[in-house]
């Protein structure tokens, strides 16, 4: 199934996805969409790990486990992030990024 597809293609996709995630993080005005772009970044890294494990070091499952753990951590992180975002919503009545800059200089 997978022969013939060189490793680099996967890496290209994952890096592109990674940097799209970063672009998303930097431009989206809504806290939750920022969260989504973080999910994108983490997925990109997952692909990386899986691909490396599959292609380069099939004997042990470091990559696989690492991505498993990343998924778990991402879940925890998302939960906490959303809890905080809701808290922000309750305080600021809006989750737009720009009004969250009360503390500066």
């Amino acid at each position, binding site marked *: 199934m997978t022969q013939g597809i060189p490793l680099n293609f996967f890496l290209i996709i994952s890096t592109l996805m990674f940097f799209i995630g970063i672009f998303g993080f930097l431009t989206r005005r809504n806290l939750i969409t920022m969260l989504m772009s973080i999910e994108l970044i983490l997925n990109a890294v997952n692909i990386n790990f899986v691909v490396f494990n599959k292609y380069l070091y099939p004997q042990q499952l470091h990559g696989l486990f*690492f991505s498993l753990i990343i998924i778990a951590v991402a879940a925890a992180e998302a939960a906490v992030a959303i809890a905080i975002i809701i808290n922000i919503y309750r305080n*600021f009545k809006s989750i737009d990024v720009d009004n969250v800059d009360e503390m500066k200089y």
Partner: protein
Amino acid sequence: MVFNDFLTMRHELILVCMILLVLIIDLCVSKANKTVMIPVAISLFLIHTIIGFLPAQSGVLFGGAYHSEPLTVLMKNILNIGVVIVLLQSAAWLQKEENREKISEFFMIMWATLTGMYFMISSGDFLMLYLGLELATIPMATLAAYVHHQTKSAEAGVKFILSSALSSGILLFGLSMIYGTCGSMYFDTIQTAYGNAPLQVLAFLFFFSGMAFKISLVPFHLWTADVYEGAPVNVTSYFSVISKGASAFILIIVLYTVFHSIAYLWKDVLYIISIITMVVGNLFALRQQNLKRFLAFSSIAQAGFLLLGLLGANEVGMTATIYFVLVYIFSNLGAFGVVSAIHAKTGKENISDYNGLYKTNPLLSLLMMLSMFSLAGIPPVAGFFGKFFLFTSAASAGYYWLVFIAVLNATISLYYYLMVVKAMFINKNDNPIPYFKSDAYTRVGLICAALGIFVIGFWSQIYEIITSLAFGVIK
């Protein structure tokens, strides 16, 4: 898992059991006297610290995933002492009515983050390192947003969680590349296999930026000021003292063990980053009015000095940096102790509110002065020795000009530290902070901090112990 394996991992295990214990106790304690949790938790943690000091043989468990040497044990003990003092200082704040029912959660989350740091320190592979890092940062965000009905604390929470998410994303990308190039997550295999191919350099730099985020070095430091200002005082002190101290320890271990082979590279990175961090840290600190923000930028500048130590040859560099971190912890604890004591009583945070403090409560202002001098590096207190050994290690590697820039920065930093001293001693103030007697916990906390500042300096054995331990680490 033979018994002495348990012994080597005793720090983490006991702490996890304590978290669960607090969870259970919290259930059976009625809502009214939640405050009883504070003495319970503090005594629990005291026991834990004492156990921590018991001698234990070093060992490698879980097939390399967890290793514990006397040096890592020492680091954990230092963190323990720091946390004890933070807990003591936060007692007054916790007894306030608005977080009356959240006391046990506070302890649980704090100890969870502490376990995260332990795992990071004694991690044997990048997986454990990453896990420890996440365990240390995610609950921290909730701590930052602890006083959730306060807008500032909420904002601090969201800023921290999102920035740390981004930084862990980049860190992971770096880790994936390391995994890609070296084939295994374990430190010992990577250590030998790590060449200087461009991809490996990129991977290391991404990894380094992730870690730099935690120590708030300059390009990655922007979150520090807002989070420190937003979070409640004791959480900020936990942030700046424990979390920064732990990540500094981790950086030392990782740089010296794993990336030992590309030392020339990261020494140049540190050279540039330390200069920028010191300069920017000082520049921003000059104009601060809010004490928490002020201490944030001063801690950024101190992080800049810290990097200087790492430039030295490995044993000398490591010892100097660890010693400096120890001194940094105690001086900051002193400062934060005073700030939290005053904040707990009067809620004031600005430097201008501290005018004429000496007239009303002399002891507090004396301790604040001592910690300021220790941060600035003035002789009688430990800060001077810390800075001196740091610069000696940097000079031993021949970075004279860097030492000169660093010492000049120290002089600029002296300016804004003296601003605080000036406020307390010289400025007149019509309604200074009235005299107040802080409760038992805070006073004990303050005395420990004061003792630390003095003793560490003169008592040369501490430096000797660190040196002897440091020699064992680098294989």
